[in-house]
């Protein structure tokens, strides 16, 4: 056992999978080197490292934005200095599972916007698709380069009491957070320079290079140096820091809608030397705001006419438009069926059991057992608009039920999953906190690549199960061992 004061107080939460301790309270092998190292450090040294991390985040402006908090909106993303460690075997499993899932989801998108075999065969109910606000009829029969819809995916994974991985949600529109994966690693290099090589931690720094390579390959013009831009909604967006970081790391232009114009069904960027044709747009603006001519006419973030350039194949847009029909939470339940249907394979990664509240019997069941449920809106992400049954007050539950009854289609419920816990350095001691994992998968003409790592989010409040940054969550560096 370790004698240093900050380690012997660690009490794993009973009935929860602990990433560091096994069932007999022994430290798992893959955490041993790190814990050995940390045990030698005095609390004072660790406090200094923690303080250094905080200052680095602040001086580099690594921030995100919290809405509805009423305070200053820009915040530092809290960072925990203890890495989350994943073994090579665990990673191989996760990687295989995500590749399989993403392949099926891509085929699903191609299918719903073309032949609709899966609807005709009754595998996914037609009303779930046709009532989804993100099913865009404008995408029907529109061909996208290489049939790739999901170029970038952030699939959220959690682990239950047995350590089994589950997919919590598929983020296939404009998943964010990858810049924190990159920055967290940079910070760890500063804090523990010698630990990464000794522990054989695999590198994540290739991410921007792979993304750039994929974007380049989508260029509709036969041009060795295509113009690629990152289209950001602007400085008020919660992920603006990420937009600037990715644009800088890839060496592409960071633009807003007002910097672009469509002329003769081609997209141009306004530069000091005149108009320059744009070939590929990595957009971080939602579908509805992308083209005020076709979608939301009040949008001031988009580019009028861009849909016609896209339709003609004169510009590539990443991710494709209309992906929301595949990551809608009401569609989520059918992803395992999609895997069987399109790939003829058994799903590798499990789904969390999900109740569709549009079915009256499931609605009744969920209302009876609401204390054991997490209820979510099908079209929201980021932890907004959800109800954690076990933690909500009577009044909150009643209000939420009324909200559900207005349009049950918009809600799903899942049993509360007891997320796995990992050690965090909190006030001078190691304490278990709940975590999830969002690896980032990149899909290009050469296939799907996933950098070994991802964003591990932590519910920093003791006892909390909500890891979203908007709800008081933080993050950790995520190590995948070779």
């Amino acid at each position: 056992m370790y004698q240093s004061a900050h380690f012997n107080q660690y009490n794993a939460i009973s009935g929860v999978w602990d990433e560091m301790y096994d069932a007999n309270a022994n430290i798992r092998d893959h955490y041993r080197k790190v814990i050995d190292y940390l045990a030698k450090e005095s609390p004072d040294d660790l406090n200094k490292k923690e303080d250094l991390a905080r200052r680095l985040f602040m001086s580099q402006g690594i921030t995100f934005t919290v809405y509805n908090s009423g305070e200053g909106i820009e915040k530092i993303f809290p960072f925990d200095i203890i890495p989350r460690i994943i073994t090579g075997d665990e990673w191989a499993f996760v990687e295989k599972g995500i590749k399989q899932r993403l392949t099926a989801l891509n085929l699903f998108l191609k299918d719903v916007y073309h032949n609709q075999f899966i609807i005709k065969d009754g595998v996914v109910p037609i009303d779930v698709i046709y009532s989804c606000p993100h099913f865009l009829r404008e995408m029907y029969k529109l061909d996208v380069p290489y049939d790739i819809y999901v170029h970038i995916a952030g699939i959220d994974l959690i682990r239950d009491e047995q350590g089994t991985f589950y997919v919590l949600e598929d983020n296939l529109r404009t998943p964010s957070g990858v810049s924190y994966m990159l920055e967290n690693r940079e910070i760890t290099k500063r804090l523990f320079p010698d630990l990464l090589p000794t522990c054989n931690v695999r590198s994540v720094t290739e991410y921007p290079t792979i993304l750039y390579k994929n974007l380049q390959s989508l260029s509709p013009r036969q041009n060795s140096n295509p113009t690629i831009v990152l289209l950001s909604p602007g400085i008020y967006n919660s992920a603006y820091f990420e937009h600037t970081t990715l644009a800088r790391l890839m060496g592409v232009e960071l633009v807003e809608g007002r910097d672009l114009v469509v002329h003769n069904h081609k997209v141009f960027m306004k530069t000091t030397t005149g108009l320059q044709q744009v070939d590929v747009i990595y957009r971080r603006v939602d579908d509805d705001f992308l083209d005020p001519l076709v979608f939301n006419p009040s949008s001031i973030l988009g580019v009028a006419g861009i849909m016609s350039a896209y339709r003609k194949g004169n510009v590539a847009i990443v991710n494709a438009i209309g992906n929301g029909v595949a990551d809608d939470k009401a569609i989520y339940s059918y992803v395992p069926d999609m895997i069987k249907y399109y790939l003829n394979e058994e799903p590798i990664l499990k789904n969390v059991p999900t109740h569709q509240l549009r079915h009256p019997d499931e609605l009744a069941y969920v209302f009876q057992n609401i204390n054991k449920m997490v209820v979510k809106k099908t079209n929201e992400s980021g932890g907004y608009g959800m109800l954690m049954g076990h933690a909500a007050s009577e009044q909150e539950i009643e209000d939420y039920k009324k909200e559900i009854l207005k349009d049950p289609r918009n809600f799903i419920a899942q049993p509360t999953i007891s997320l796995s816990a990992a050690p965090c350095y909190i006030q001078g001691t190691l304490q278990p906190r709940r975590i999830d994992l969002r690896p980032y998968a990149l899909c290009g003409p050469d296939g799907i690549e996933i950098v070994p790592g991802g964003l591990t989010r932590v519910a920093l409040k003791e006892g909390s199960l909500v890891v979203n940054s908007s709800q008081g969550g933080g993050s950790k560096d995520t190590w995948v061992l070779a």
Partner: protein
Amino acid sequence: MPEFKIQHVTRYTYDSLVRDSANQITLFPIVDIYQDVLKHDLHITGNPLVDTHIDYYGNEVGNFTYVERHKELVISSEVLVNTHHKPLPTDEAPAEQQWQALAALQYIVPYIDFLKQEYFEGIDELRTIVEAERQSGDTPYQTALQFCEYVYKNFEYIKGVTTVETKLDEIWKLKAGVCQDFAHILMEMLRLLGIPARYVSGYICPNRGGMRGDGATHAWAEAYIPDYGWLGIDPTNNCIANETHVRLAVGRNFSDCSPVKGIYKGLSGHKLEVGVAVEYKDGKTTGKPEKISPAFPASGSLAATFTQNSYQQYKQNLLEQQQAAQQQ
């Protein structure tokens, strides 16, 4: 076999120079066995390159941009169309069998889209009316005609009280409107009973008949009748839409079929004039460009200073809200 020469002019005029205008036009008459297009001339200010595609509903849609600064944008579409009389439903199958045939379409593409009811405050009231108006034993065809007459008799045809953006709630309160409002209410009634209903935009060419909607773009509804197909019904004129009605597009609602829509960058408001003139084979012409009140009042006083600029604040808030709303 009537032949019509239809001239449809849309003119936007701006108080000051605007630029980066992007437009979508749905001005290409549907071509099928009941309608041929003999000639179509399209003239647009600046001669932009118009790209056309077929949309989800099968309509031909054109897109163009006009980037240079301009104070006027005119879209002039001149079509020479032939229409043919479509025989009416024989309506021989027993009513019950027909209703069952419709019920089977509920979860079938494309009918699912044309059965979706739009929620509005008066829906319960309308449901009561629908139940009261429908005669038991009536076929879907008879019911559709019945409802068409109901809308015609109970809604007043008044120009200018509604716009293309008026929602069902308001039409319901006003009990008045123009063709698209009449079509909107009729579609909702049909859908409440499970009859697929779609919106049609086009032109009405009554020659000497004199019908509502003459001299402008017109709109009506189509109901899906078993063993027959889509039947055009015009609640504004309480008639079957047949060879006097030239179809441009079909869709779930107005916004799927909007004949001309556009976005531009500029400080000034715009004035919109739309005119439709129809020339008949016998030499008669009806309709002339008609002025429509501006959608946005023109504004623009310069060099004033304000202690509070709520508009700028509003724009800033809007920008922040929209930027903040994008996330996953």
